[in-house]
């Protein structure tokens, strides 16, 4: 039996042996799935903010930010035997939940999160092989360590497989 490993907001974790990672209800946050297909090692990170620049970030807070979280998740995966050169990414989230907010800090945070995640993955030379981002609805993200499949579920709009 495969286990279901829950990744909370601003957390990251890895899975092996066919176990499944899940993060619930991504809104403007972004869920980043990383996979080494040869070793069948999967990683999932649920970030809230684009960049840790300007903050005194403690170890516990590193999962919040795209830059620090991706770095930590890669370390965790390579420690388990994954090779960074083999890792590919699937990303989801970054929605705009509330339309028409006249608050610039809030109105495009999803978009900025997605852009930061892409820039950070590019910096680590990790290709993005699937993406379900933007729009205006929440997403629950499942990631299967057995085959690297990502499944996205929404509250009212259905379910997609990547």
């Amino acid at each position: 039996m495969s286990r279901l490993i829950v990744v909370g907001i601003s957390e990251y974790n890895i899975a092996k042996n066919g176990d499944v990672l899940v993060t619930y209800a991504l809104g403007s946050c972004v869920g980043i799935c990383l996979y080494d297909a040869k070793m069948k090692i999967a990683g999932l990170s649920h970030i809230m903010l684009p960049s840790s620049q300007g903050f005194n970030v403690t170890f516990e807070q590193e999962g919040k930010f795209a830059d620090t979280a991706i770095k930590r998740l890669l370390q965790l995966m390579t420690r388990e035997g994954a090779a960074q050169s083999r890792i590919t990414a699937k990303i989801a989230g970054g929605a705009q939940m509330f339309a028409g907010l006249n608050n610039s800090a809030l109105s495009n945070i999803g978009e900025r999160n997605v852009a930061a995640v892409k820039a950070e993955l590019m910096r680590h030379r990790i290709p993005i092989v699937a993406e379900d981002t933007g729009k205006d609805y929440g997403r629950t993200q499942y990631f299967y360590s057995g085959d690297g499949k990502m499944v996205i579920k929404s509250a009212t709009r259905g379910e997609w497989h990547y």
Partner: protein
Amino acid sequence: MNLFDFSSLNEMQLDALKEIGNIGSGNAATALSQMLNRPVMIAVPRVTVLDYQTVTDRLGGPEELMIGLLLTISGDLTGMIMFLLQKEFANMVLSDLLGEESFDVDNDMGRSAVMEVGNIMAASYVNAIASLTGLRIELSPPSFCMDMVGAILSVPTIYYADISDKIIYIEDEFNNSINHAASHVLLIPEVEALQKMMRSLGLG
């Protein structure tokens, strides 16, 4: 920049916030009750300093379908007010208010009516706080979202994530006297706003 620790608030300050929540929600409940022409119950407000996970768990888990109405407050106080309504609660309000079953949160007419109700309730809420504290508070129009409660709450959580790991919620629960559909209103002040409210009440 270091993150702010909301748990540094003392008992007396928490009581003051509870009282603010009490007065605000009392006013909002009266406004709702007048619109619906029937009694609306409010629970004693809870002031809690919570992380996102705990709040979503308390509201039925991150995937629970809910309606969120978000209004930002500005002026002397800055922050947000968020109404979280069960779909049943919103539809009940609509049928009471408009007397027609055809108004539903799944259609545009129903949505804009719900937003207007949220607008009136939020205005009553902040007016109460404004006259209590003597501070000037302005309210944005509401924005509507029906989705997983975790995704809705991620919006204020992200907004405050660069200030603190936790959010202070002043939470009030409204209940209709006939059925048990509930709604919650969360007042989410910014740190500076929190300090201003405290000072205006002589607790700074």
